[in-house]
């Protein structure tokens, strides 16, 4: 048999061996399956470069923000990618759909973050296909924990740290209840539920206080906002972050580059379209400054 599908040709015999050990109590574990196929999940650096210890600061030049609004969760990120003080890309996607009801917003090393998002997406699908049921909400949270924890050596090397926000809609929530949930992770993979909002990335320090203020003292509390109000608020927040954080981009009117804004509701994940964002941008400007 010609060797034209690297893995595919080896798959059958290897699967037999694998099956004897694993499949008979198959757990729908995609990560395990990938490891079995020798997929390089980690990059091993020479040892002299790995002993930086705990003084490594995880680079996370961006701003992503999630708020709980009336119908679920709205989650957004700016579009700038930086290397040191240079802007290298102005259309980066930092808010990634994982499945019909979950979204990952990333800050940190893009290579690892995209890989984590991809593994996560495939893991959920693989679980559904092999185990014939959706992975539970708790199961999804743990899967992400595990991926982040496995990535710890890279984070400690100072090159692969990822701190994401994970937003999901809990379909088991009662009809009149808001099933939107926001989770924040640390570098070791612990997850914490943020009730009303979460933000991460270098720009987040400039808006965390604003979020707290809006959520507690705002005219319309975050959780009561409709989709339009929430969009306007989020655009204002990103605008504020971009004012003070060099690694966060604002709205580029000339090139028509908008932040990524997604909603996670009972009906699934949806993008807020660019023309909608443009209208909201006009509304987000203070009186007299509208373009």
């Amino acid at each position, binding site marked *: 048999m010609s060797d034209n599908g690297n893995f*595919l040709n080896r798959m059958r015999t290897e699967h037999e061996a694998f099956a004897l050990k694993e499949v008979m109590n198959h757990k729908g574990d995609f990560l395990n399956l990938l490891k079995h196929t020798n997929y390089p999940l980690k990059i091993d650096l020479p040892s002299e470069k790995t002993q930086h210890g705990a003084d490594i600061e995880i680079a996370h030049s961006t701003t992503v923000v999630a708020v709980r609004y009336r119908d679920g969760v709205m989650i957004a990120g700016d579009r700038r990618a930086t290397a040191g003080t240079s802007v290298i890309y102005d259309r980066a996607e930092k808010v990634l759909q994982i499945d019909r009801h979950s979204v990952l917003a990333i800050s940190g090393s893009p290579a690892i973050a995209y890989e984590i998002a991809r593994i996560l997406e495939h893991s959920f699908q693989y679980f559904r296909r092999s185990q014939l049921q959706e992975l539970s909400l708790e199961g999804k949270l743990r899967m992400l924990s595990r991926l982040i924890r496995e990535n710890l050596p890279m984070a400690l090397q100072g090159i692969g740290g990822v701190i994401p926000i994970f937003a999901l809609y809990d379909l088991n929530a009662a009809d009149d209840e808001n099933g939107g949930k926001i989770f924040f992770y640390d570098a070791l993979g612990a997850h914490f539920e943020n009730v009303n909002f979460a933000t991460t990335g270098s720009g987040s320090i400039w808006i965390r206080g604003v979020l707290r203020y809006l959520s507690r003292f705002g005219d319309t509390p975050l959780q009561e906002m409709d989709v339009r109000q929430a969009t306007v608020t989020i655009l204002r927040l990103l605008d504020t972050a971009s004012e003070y954080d060099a690694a966060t981009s604002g709205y580029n009117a000339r090139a028509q580059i908008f932040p990524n804004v997604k909603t996670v509701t009972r009906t699934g994940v949806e993008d807020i379209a660019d023309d909608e964002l443009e209208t909201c941008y006009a509304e987000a400007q203070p009186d007299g400054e509208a373009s």
Partner: protein
Amino acid sequence: MRDEPYRWIEAIQDRRDYIEDQLRVGSPVVGLTYDDGMVLLTIGRGQRKIFEVHDRIALSAIGHPADIERLRMLVTDTASVQGFQNATEDVNLHRLTNFVLAHTFKQAFESIVGEAYIIKMLLAELGSTGDKNRFTCINYDGNVRTDMTSTVIGGTEVIETGMQNYLATASTGSDRDLTAALQLGLEAWAVGRELSSREPEEAESEETQVDTVQMHEIINVAREDGEIEAGVLETTQRGASKFRLLTSQEIETALP
């Protein structure tokens, strides 16, 4: 035994008889295209029989549940890993069938000292732009058959021929809607069930006509201790995964 050709052929024939005897009473599966995709349909007794393999690929089978499960895992694992390592668009039914499944089936069947798979498998692939929808059936001996607009798997060749003949005469083309496809599929299933309940010689005779009244009776009887199961690959489904099982309400509306 291999240096005695006659005994080897005899052993293979015994094996064939044994497997076909086991398969004969299996509940047939019908695959049909319709205006928005493809549907797989059967009536089962509790055990799920229609599965999602990948974004655009679905699977069904008749045979021993343990064999179905093992081979379903093989094809699901292979498709998942390949879809991850390359891209999901790179997974296709032709390669899964010819590089992974067919020779697994053949090898198990012909290694007469090992266990044989008691299985007939039906896979459906929803074509992406420029590609056609495709049904592939793999027999327990590794033989592969491909159909474009409709297909069946049943316990024996006689049952399959009977069902296919019915589909050929009753079908009005592939532009039917889902309701029409479900009705046609159920009728073909009833033909298959009827043939599998007859003695082999009887089934082979010309008297294979099953009229509509009889069909509905067979379906109603089957539904008493079983359940209609149908899965679709829908082109209009949002997102990359096109498979979903139909709900019992959706199936109910298609019933006569």
